[in-house]
């Protein structure tokens, strides 16, 4: 068994190390510097191995610490009515029972198990058991310092705290034995990543008991909870015997992991299928235009669900929010004042909102999956003049789609500013409205430009460009960062307008220069 554990460990490590090296290979610039023989480089492997081992060690304690800080003690602080030890033991007990169902290890079909037991045909019983014992040991070692530390803070006796990690392991063993018995009897497969509705319901109920009862001043008395905690240990040992003698691990894992294999294949085609689903089959959608205008009109009409309809829904929500804000202001002068201050100082916040509601990524993804993916294989489509003609049409289209909510937000904010008490400088109204429109313009141009300049997909519809991913992440981070910026409306608005216009012009120039070369399928 020890040998199996060692092999499974080496396998998991090899897979983690290669994942780290693969991630390094995705970083632009660095990827050119790293040779294909990277996976042979000993030094790097050792480095990645150290990282993987460190991660394994850190996680033994990290999650447990977070669990105690937030779930057990953090929330426990709210309950002042009960003795601290009583609420601590109550919450932890019910959470342990919930966790035993939701986090079983054996019934979690993961990739490393798929590789080991299905692809490499390792002995399923010995693989499952050795790894299960290892997981339980990690759990006991990981819990011990924190049960003692946090338990002592809540005045729980030390001897009980020393036993607690074993009780938690016992709870897991009991649940595993129950699930295995059920499998033996009925053939039901328990997959902790695809839980049945009744399990979710039971988990919700257990959480309610864990947190709800103490809120009402009710908790298991120590005379009940302490014996329960202790009873988990012999019951766990009894369960361990059953788990050890259970003889259908191969069959069980085969069934469980075959679901996993389908999932892995599924992910590849999911994006493509989703995009295909977005195509409307309504026969009334036709076009009287010609050439690229014809193509574009049909594309937009048949993708209404993800383009115009989505955008109009957002517009409607904005209208409702606007009405809500106007109504709220009519009730309270305080709200008026704070909305006035908010608009005058927190315009940067709206960069993130405009980022969140723009349809750029959805548009470009649908463009590729349902249109360019196929048409880019035809030479007539790749002629420079045609690429640019279509870019112009598409840019107009995405600008229109994004503009609808932008107009409502821009005009709405100006209206709110006026109603909430106005401003001394009337220029504020104009700048507010125009800057929101410019943000919308910016996101329209931005997404279409990076799509044309970096065209990240290959013929198999996989994203092959690390740079594209990086640009998307940076866009997100910058927009997120803008939420923290407080700046006067006029200043930020003007800077924003100038930036957006300059960016859009530059982007279009770049597209005109480079897109005929860059807008093609990745190989």
């Amino acid at each position, binding site marked *: 068994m020890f040998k199996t554990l060692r092999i499974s460990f080496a396998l998991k490590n090899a897979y983690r190390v290669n994942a780290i090296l693969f991630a390094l290979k995705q970083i632009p610039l660095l990827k050119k510097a790293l*040779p*294909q*023989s990277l996976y042979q480089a000993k030094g790097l492997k050792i480095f990645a191995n150290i990282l993987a081992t460190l991660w394994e060690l850190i996680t033994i304690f990290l999650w447990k610490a977070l669990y105690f800080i937030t779930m057990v003690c953090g929330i426990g602080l709210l309950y002042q009515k009960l003795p601290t030890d009583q609420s601590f033991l109550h919450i932890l007990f019910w959470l342990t029972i919930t966790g035993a169902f939701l986090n079983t290890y054996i019934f979690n079909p993961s990739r490393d198990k798929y590789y080991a037991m299905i692809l490499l045909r390792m002995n399923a019983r010995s693989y499952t058991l050795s790894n299960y014992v290892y997981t339980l040991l990690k759990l006991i070692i990981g819990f011990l310092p924190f049960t003692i530390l946090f338990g002592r803070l809540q005045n729980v006796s030390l001897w009980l705290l020393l036993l607690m990690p074993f009780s938690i392991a016992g709870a897991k063993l009991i649940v595993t034995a129950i699930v295995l018995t059920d499998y033996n009897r009925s053939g039901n497969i328990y997959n902790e990543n695809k839980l049945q509705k009744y399990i979710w319901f039971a988990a919700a109920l257990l959480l309610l008991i864990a947190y709800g009862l103490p809120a009402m001043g009710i908790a298991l008395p120590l005379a009940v909870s302490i014996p329960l905690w202790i009873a988990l240990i012999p019951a766990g040992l009894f369960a361990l015997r059953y788990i050890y003698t259970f003889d259908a691990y191969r069959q069980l894992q085969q069934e469980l992991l075959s679901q996993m294999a389908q999932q892995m294949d599924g992910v590849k085609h999911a994006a493509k299928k989703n995009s*295909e689903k977005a*195509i409307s*089959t309504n026969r009334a959608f036709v076009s009287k235009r*010609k*050439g*690229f205008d*014809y*193509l574009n009109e*049909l*594309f937009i009409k*048949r*993708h209404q669900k993800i383009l115009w309809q989505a955008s109009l829904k957002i517009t409607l929500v904005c209208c409702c929010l606007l009405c809500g804000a106007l109504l709220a202001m009519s009730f309270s002068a305080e709200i008026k004042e704070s909305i006035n201050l908010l608009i005058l100082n927190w315009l940067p916040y709206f960069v993130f909102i405009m980022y969140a509601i723009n349809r750029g990524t959805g548009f470009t993804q649908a463009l590729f999956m*349902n*249109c360019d*993916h*196929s*048409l880019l*294989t*035809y*030479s*007539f489509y*790749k*002629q420079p003049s*045609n690429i640019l003609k279509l870019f112009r049409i598409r840019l107009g289209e995405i600008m229109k789609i994004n503009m609808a909510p932008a107009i409502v937000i821009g005009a709405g904010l100006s209206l709110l500013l006026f109603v909430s008490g106005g401003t001394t400088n009337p220029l504020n109204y104009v700048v507010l409205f125009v800057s929101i429109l410019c943000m919308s313009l910016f996101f329209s141009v931005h997404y279409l430009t990076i799509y044309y300049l970096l065209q990240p997909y290959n*013929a198999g519809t996989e994203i092959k460009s690390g740079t594209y991913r990086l640009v998307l992440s940076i866009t997100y981070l910058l927009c997120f960062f803008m939420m923290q910026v407080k700046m006067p409306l006029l200043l930020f608005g003007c800077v924003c307008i100038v930036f957006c216009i300059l960016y859009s012009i530059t982007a279009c120039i770049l597209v005109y220069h480079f897109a005929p070369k860059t807008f*093609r*399928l990745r*190989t």
Partner: protein
Amino acid sequence: MQFIIEHLEKSFENKQVLQDIDFIFEEGHIYGLLGRNGAGKTTLFNCINRDMKTDHGNFYLAENGVRREVLPEDIGYVLSTPTVPEFLTAREFLKFFMDINEKSIKHPASLDEYFDRMHIATEDRDKLLKDYSHGMKNKMQMLINLIAEPNILLLDEPLTSLDVVVAEEIKQLLRSFKDGRIIIVSTHILDLAVDLCDQIVLLSHGVLETVDKANLDNHAFKTKILTALREEDHV
């Protein structure tokens, strides 16, 4: 017309896939491009189609002794997995294609005539392409490429997943289409290559070389090709 490739090279990091491709393809012929797995057939096609940058070398079209650059419209590339815009019906796709290429299509016909030629049934013509079968998509892709009448037609593993009737139809079409054009078919199926192609070209060790049929019958010719491909292991 000739399609001339001169000293074409392409490598990926340390692996040189195309070493020194030097070859002249003549019009009116169908060339069967054969090579072992990983020999670089798709890489060669991608280079010719300019989907991939070459490291070295060049290729031209020569008409009456005058050389000129190969333009995108000179090339038609039919991939093994058929790709058609799923949100259009077959008729709409064809109409769009005809609109765009109005000026360059030499012998325009009506849309239905084209469908008839390709044996695409009337009831299928107004169906969304996303609901087309693999074989039907393949036909549609082939149709577009044939109407464009490119000077060079590249076909990557054609006919592999088509039923025998459609495969035979497409073979006939290609034969009738070869006059005045160069067709290069990359395939793993030796029978198809020998049956359809006028010349067999091997891609091995990064270079192209023809296998001369001379007076051999089909069986002897296949044996000769196989021997040549096997030799790769021993060099």
